[in-house]
């Protein structure tokens, strides 16, 4: 099994198999779980996007929420104004956000760490307010995103949430398969090289600026997709759907996943999905006061973030791997 995953065809089969498992799972759990499954898929894509940018190409983005917003709005506009089929709306989201990302990335490639962090932060705060400026973006209330009812061929009992889950899960599977292919190709290698040693990468013939811009573009494409998925699960797009805290949560998810490792992405996504539930369980014990219910998720996520950075800065997955390497090295001696 392990070996099979390491060939491209093998991985394609693995992903199809995974999709089948998910399909079976989707039929066996209640509506809430199905809805959470869709959210989970959305987070998987969004966190992968952050990991790609921060972990693989070494650029910090504090403003991924803004990219999600671009994706969400473009999908909704494509649906509402041109009535495109739903899969095409997602494609539009990916392409538009990737295009925006390539422009941003060109600027970002010139900036060093703190300046890039500042620029992306400003973008995350600034961009959603644009919606208030132009009436076709729906202002503060935003726009309704209706992906339509599930096809009748799926049967009458097939609920909309299950339909969302199907869409989100297949989108996530395709996106991750696609991303893994890229990361295993010379492009992924190039990004890791640039992050490892810029000058050495340049001497090896890599145009560092182009490589970084490409990473930003691909990451944006994924962010756009997850933005569209987010819009689908909540049914609307509005400035308040993409707050600064979304950007920060995604970063938290990425850190929990171990910024550099894609396999850990589930850890981050599951945590982000489960956090509100854990928080509500705890606040229930504390007597269900409003302020606690509202703020507990924030406290938990932030505390987790700090603990991870302090204790396992490269994420649990990477930490295990390092331990294994050390063990092997000792065995060699």
């Amino acid at each position, binding site marked *: 099994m392990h070996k099979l995953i390491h060939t491209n065809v093998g991985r394609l089969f693995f992903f199809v198999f995974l999709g089948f498992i998910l399909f079976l799972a989707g039929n066996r759990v209640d509506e809430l779980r199905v809805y959470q499954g869709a959210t989970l898929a959305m987070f998987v894509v969004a966190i992968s996007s952050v990991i790609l940018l921060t972990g693989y190409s070494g650029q*910090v983005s504090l403003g991924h929420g803004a990219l999600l917003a671009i994706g969400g709005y473009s999908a909704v506009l494509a649906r509402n104004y041109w009535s495109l089929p739903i899969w095409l709306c997602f494609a539009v989201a990916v392409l538009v956000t990737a295009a925006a990302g390539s422009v941003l990335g060109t600027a970002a490639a010139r900036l060093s760490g703190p300046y890039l962090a500042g620029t992306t932060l400003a973008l995350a705060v600034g961009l959603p307010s644009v919606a208030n400026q132009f009436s076709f973006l729906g202002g503060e209330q935003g726009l309704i995103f209706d992906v339509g009812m599930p096809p009748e061929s799926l049967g009458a009992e097939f609920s909309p949430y299950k339909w969302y889950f199907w869409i989100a899960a297949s989108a996530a599977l395709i996106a991750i398969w696609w991303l893994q292919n890229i990361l295993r190709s010379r492009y992924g290698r190039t990004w890791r090289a640039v992050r490892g040693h810029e000058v050495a990468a340049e001497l090896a013939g890599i145009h560092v600026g182009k490589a970084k811009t490409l990473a930003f573009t691909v990451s944006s494409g994924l962010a756009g997709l997850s933005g569209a998925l987010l819009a689908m699960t909540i049914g609307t797009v509005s400035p308040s759907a993409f707050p600064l805290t979304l950007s920060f949560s995604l970063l938290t998810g990425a850190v929990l996943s171990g910024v550099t490792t894609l396999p850990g992405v589930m850890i981050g996504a599951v945590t982000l999905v489960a956090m509100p539930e854990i928080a509500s369980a705890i606040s229930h014990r504390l007597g269900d006061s409003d302020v606690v219910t509202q703020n507990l998720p924030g*406290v938990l996520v*932030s505390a987790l973030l700090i603990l991870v950075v302090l204790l396992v800065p490269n994420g649990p997955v990477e930490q295990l791997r390092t331990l294994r390497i050390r063990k092997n090295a000792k065995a060699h001696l």
Partner: protein
Amino acid sequence: MFTFIDTILIGLTSGAVYSLMAIALVLVWRSTRVINFAQAGQALLSTYIGFECIGRFNSYWVALILAMILGAGVSAFIEIVFMRTLFKRNTGPIAGVAPIIATLGLLGIIRSGIGIFMGGKETIIRPPVSNIGYTISGHTFALSPFKLVIVSAVVVMMVVLSLIFTKTNIGLALRASAFAPEIARLAGVKVDAIRTLGWAIAGAAGAAAGMLQTPNGTGALSPDSLEFSLLLVFGFIAAVIGGLESLIGAVIGGLLLGLVLAIVLMYINATLLFMTAFILLILVLLVRPQGIMGKKGGRRA
């Protein structure tokens, strides 16, 4: 004409507060090479402390001083407990990002923590003097006694800071540790302690920014209030525009941002504020990727 004068006045007062916040960020950046996103959270915490103090001592001024002292303490605590551990352990692939992430986490904890403990209460900080503008020949200008207080408080603090930095031994140690920590250590400066001090001063400056900004707005104090989002984002943009390295740069960045935003606010539309700040930031960085007063990167190999 009146509108234009008001624009300048609004720009300078809000710019002064952003400058104060930017100074706090620059102090931390210079002493530990960390962008402290928790700065706005610390300012929030200090302002809450100030609010409690107002209740107890019945004086805004005593509360301001106490908030600054306690803000400094909180900031020093964060440096000692979190930053030192972080730098000791931090070697992995995310070495460059980890401090930023840690301060974001702190920001989250402070905000939500305050939300839990204080969120239910109604908290209003009233300005100690009137915030209603002076009226001259029928026009009420955007300059009130409290705005004068803000500007003069910021000016006083800047003068005090620059005196500390240029005239005292501590200031010399602070500058030396920022520019060349190794040489400073060889000269006998306890660089670790000086770093903590840098954080403490930043904490005090941030506390002052919070205590001045809150009554200048609606006066309502809450973890999610607009005032603190403004401080977080605009203080930060001001610092980056200024180049992160220099206190003068922070002041220039703050005032520039304040003026530009005031123009947008008065002549165009308030919803564009954040977008304008972003565009201004991009424009400055496109011309000078290292900020207005920042230094160009050295040799690479």
